[in-house]
């Protein structure tokens, strides 16, 4: 595990080849090699969700997936969620003035985007359960719920 390997994967629709130590989490490759810094480092152990991206269409922790397992996989980050930040969740996030420090919000939005793919009409309880893995230390939880509900309504 102490020598680098080459891995090819698709990130936000583009094919990329990276070299890294095989156990390097996807997170660090995204942030430091591919300069996609919207995916954040919060805990490194899948406890906070700040690094949430979509891997093969599913929300997942970039900090827990080693690059050695990413060959041929398809990754979407916050930068690839919509071409011009016009995703219904992004618009709703602005309308509800969700972010404070903002650090966790890429992960929150990517997780919520997973929910919207899975369910067209989640209940409030389902929203809360689905969003449970993501910590916001500024405590914007109430606004996150409101923004998700708004995005569901306004599409």
């Amino acid at each position, binding site marked *: 595990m*102490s*020598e*680098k390997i080459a891995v090819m994967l698709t990130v936000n629709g583009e094919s990329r080849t990276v070299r*890294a*130590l095989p*156990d*390097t*989490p996807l997170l*660090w490759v995204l*942030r*430091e090699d591919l*300069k*996609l*810094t*919207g*995916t*954040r*480092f*919060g*805990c*490194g*152990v899948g*406890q*906070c969700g*700040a690094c949430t991206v979509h891997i093969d269409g599913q929300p997942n922790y970039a900090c827990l997936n080693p690059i050695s397992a990413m060959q041929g996989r398809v990754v979407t*980050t*916050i*930068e690839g*969620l919509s071409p011009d*930040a016009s995703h219904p*969740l*992004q618009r709703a*996030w*602005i309308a509800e*003035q*969700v*972010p*404070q*420090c*903002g*650090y*966790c*919000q*890429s992960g929150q*939005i990517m997780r919520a985007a997973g929910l919207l793919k899975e369910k067209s009409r989640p209940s409030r309880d389902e929203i*809360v*359960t689905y*969003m*449970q893995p*993501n*910590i*916001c*230390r*500024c*405590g*914007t*939880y*109430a*606004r*996150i719920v409101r923004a998700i509900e708004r995005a569901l309504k306004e599409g």
Partner: protein
Amino acid sequence: MHDSGRRRFMTGTAGLTFGIASGTLGGMSGSNGIAHAQPRSRETGRVPPAVTMNPWVTLATDGTVTIMSPACEMGQGSLTSLPLILADEMDVEWAKVRIVHAPPNDALYGNPRLGGVMYTAGSLAVTGYFTMMRQFGAQVRWVLVDNAARHLGVPVDALTTQPGRVLHVASGRSLGYGEIAEFAVIPARAPEIPLEPLDKVRFRLIGRDVGRIDVPDKVRGAPVYSIDVQRPGMVYGAILREPVEGAAPLKIDDRAARAIEGVLDVVRLKYGVGVVADAPWAAFKAKQALQVEWERKATGWGFSNDKGFESFAAIARDPSRQGVAWEQEGNARSALQKATNVFEREYRADYAYHAQMEPLNSVADVSPKGDACEIWCGTQSQTFAVAAVADALGIPVANVKLNDMMIGGAFGRRGNRDTEFIVDAALLSRAVGKPVKVMWTREDDVKNGRFRPLYVNRLRAGLDANGRITAMHHKVVCDRVLPFADPVRAKAAKGRDNIAMRGTEIPSYDIADRLSEGIHPDTGIRTAPLRAIGVGQNCFANECFIDEIAAERKLDPVAYRVAMLAKQPRAQHVVREVARMARWEQRARLQEQGRALGVAYIDYTGSHVAAIAEISVDRASGEVKVHRFWCTIDCGVAVQPDNVVAQTESSIVYGLGLALTEQITIADGRVVQANFYDYRVPRMSDMPELIIKVIPTPNHPTGAGQMATPLVAPAISNAFAQLTGVRLRQQPMLAERVRTALRS
């Protein structure tokens, strides 16, 4: 409050004159020598010529106004609120405003409420800069009107302004601010402009939600925190820090660390061992592979929470151990000696951790000669960051260039004078001769944490026959904070540790004889201000204590407080209003459903805040659930009302974690916890329904960033006592503590 009409100056302003200096059209820097980052025009893509109006404002010929923001942005919204205050007085269109971070310069941008230092803390940004920002805005407007008057050949008092324009109503002529910039002559010194009093002034932007300027970027992952910074040739650093403050590395075995591909160097530091690698992962792995033996001389070795509580409680209970007085009114000691009835209780709190989402980090680039350094960091004090790096490198402050970045949460953790997490990068950059990004892992952030101290609060009250408190004595024993966080301020404070003691004072309650005093042992444990500082525990003690007295005398806790607040109408109003919102009168009915309400109030540096928690308890698990939480806040003028709501939501959620689940334990001087799996912060399912009411009043704004945090724990404890008859006197009210309390 608002007026869509034209704006005049106050009577008497027209006679003011300026000493005329020279115009500076076309220059990007004014007489203060500061380069202003001037934005490009949206229409042409070019940077239009601009004139520096004063150290705060640059006006471009296309009407774009660039305003300096002197506070750091760590989520609280000052980056919007402070420039907005200036923009309001300047009478400018908000859409024309661009905001840039003010460079480190205490003389120009220091916060008057924080000793003139650029330091963002204590919810003191708006309150500290409010009048100053109004004044600078009014001066710019005056200069524009004065120039327009000469240009149009009319007297100044024939002119008014609308956002972005000066009008001469009589002739129907007008000039846009950008047009005036073309010919404006700027005085070297503008006179003091009389500002309209807050109960008369009609603000256009203040009090109207314009939306935070940082929000659109934050929903697309764009804002640049220091952890996002990349520099050409940059490498990555990690630090294995001494587990106990002051324990230097004795023996270092770095063979395994150096064997990892990508590791460039291992650097011995006074306080630990640094590794430098070509990728973050290699740096983290190498740090973990280090074998280090530490010196055992430091004070903290051997310490634990249990030892702390034992020794602190002994001091608290020993009347011969008197502390440094924090608040002293009348003579509480003698009043208590004379009182027929004395009530006495003890409250405690464990250490607590900030847990800001962005683990501490910084980037530094030391020049090849080692005589200059550029840093990128998220700091609560631009002043401290630059000074600490200059000191660590032995270079002049002027040779440190600061890039103060967006901050992924701070809560007090980034305001210590030694800014150790910034010095880390500077030292490693000097060692390897390259730009270095040092990142702490979450485990580093917890293990190297600087905590809210361990507390024992002992309170005594003298009561008259009606249960009225006639005298109060609040004795605090907790770790020293100020001497560790800021030795410079501590020296001037002469033993008065404001970070530890604030909140013991109870200025609003009508109690004639009051004394609070503090004793602050140096346990060797790292401490820091943490959101709501000492207020978080001292208000818990005060507000539980008052509730306990009311309960013993069978008095209604809301009515009891309202009576004690007789001389404070604003305070009475927030308490009465929160009681009305929560249907306090009908709380007996809730009790039948296994729920109860608890109330708490605080005057937090002038902001009046009241809260009520509705809770239930699972007696088997000991878990307390907060279902609803009502809060009223009067912080004077609410500059951005929705942001006051957002900050109040935030401070409640923060208080919820501190009250129920967040605990740092120390064993043999080391921090036991490591990450979010053993330091439990609130998650979405922990959220109560939040019902918040901002009550704006025409008073000087007094801050909103942390004012509800101290109310959460006492409101919960008071509700719990109401529900069960059992009193919880220690934060956090962990499930196992609740189970134990219910059994006894």
